[in-house]
């Protein structure tokens, strides 16, 4: 490693070594940390190191987007979910119900790395002529090159991406929504959300209460996931537990 890096200027080599160390140590931290919150913070370190590596390769826009989107949005979403669910307790790494699985996992991971390294020596890029523009230019900034390519050559893919985002948002809303079909034994089924039902008004507050003590009654006897909630016939007395234990559609 030293002789190959000796030809490189000292700032370049230092920046590469430091950012590579940040990346790899952060990644090891994600895998080995028992606490998911610390794992997410190690993930931030890794993403920051990858952004540094992008910056070294003159991908300025991607380095900025990496920090903004990954570090600013995705990791925050992770932390939000971890803390919302209250699963930030330490996972026991020592005791594994399938102990051989961990050994096999490490062996398979090392095989993956070895295979990639071997393939990197066998198959190399062919260097085909570019169809989408150069990556670096003395006069044009990186972001202009990227935008020109994105809005001309890859315009269709860009439009499809916007559709993908809309679909993801709709899917997330559908997943997060509680299926609240009202099965009113005294009258016709209304199908309205429960907070619209004056008879059970206020029950919706209980569903969104993050207090773990009050969440314990939500799972009722919905253990059989084969049943859809809107098909369950429930007695009136335990109506709220069944109607609120929905798992989306």
């Amino acid at each position, binding site marked *: 490693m030293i002789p*190959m890096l000796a030809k490189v200027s000292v700032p370049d080599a230092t920046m590469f070594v430091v950012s590579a160390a940040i990346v790899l140590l952060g990644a090891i931290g994600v895998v080995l940390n028992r606490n998911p919150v610390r794992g997410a913070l190690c993930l931030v370190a890794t993403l920051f190191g990858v952004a540094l590596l992008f910056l070294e390769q003159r991908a300025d826009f991607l380095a900025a987007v990496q920090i903004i989107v990954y570090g600013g949005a995705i990791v925050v979403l992770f932390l939000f979910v971890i803390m919302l669910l209250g699963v930030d307790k330490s996972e026991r790494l020592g005791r594994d119900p399938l102990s051989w699985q961990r050994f096999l996992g490490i062996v398979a991971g090392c095989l993956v790395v070895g295979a990639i390294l071997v393939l990197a020596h066998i198959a190399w890029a062919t260097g085909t002529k570019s169809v989408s523009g150069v990556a670096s230019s003395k006069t044009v900034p990186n972001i202009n090159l990227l935008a020109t*390519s994105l809005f001309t050559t890859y315009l269709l893919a860009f439009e499809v991406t916007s559709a993908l985002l809309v679909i993801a948002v709709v899917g997330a809303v559908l997943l997060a929504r509680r299926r609240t079909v009202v099965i009113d034994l005294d009258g016709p089924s209304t199908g309205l959300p429960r907070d619209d039902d004056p008879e059970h008004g206020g029950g919706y507050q209980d569903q969104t209460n993050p207090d773990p003590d009050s969440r314990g009654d939500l799972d009722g006897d919905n253990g059989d996931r084969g049943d859809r909630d809107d098909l369950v016939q429930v007695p009136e007395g335990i109506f709220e537990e069944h109607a609120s234990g929905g798992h989306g559609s």
Partner: protein
Amino acid sequence: MTITASWYLVVAAILFGIGAIGLLIRRSVLVMFMCVELMLNAVNLTFVTFSRTLNDIAGQVVVFFVLVVAAAEVVVGLGIIVSIYRSRRGTTADDLHIMHG
């Protein structure tokens, strides 16, 4: 002279391997998700490296799309995790035995 592309590719390969190992040995679905992000980042690094090597902007465009898809994937995946947690009180892979034989 800048660093040769091989070093970036080696870092990316090791990063991908660490992500793969974490995906295989951890049981918490959230941590497995983070390991998937690690693997995505390794691939992004490879794309950017080849974009520089071949002097072709297409690699960076692909990374842009990967970022968007990763964001969408995280949104949907975390929604699934939340809805699993609602019904099962746990988010380890062992809780997801609905399809076991």
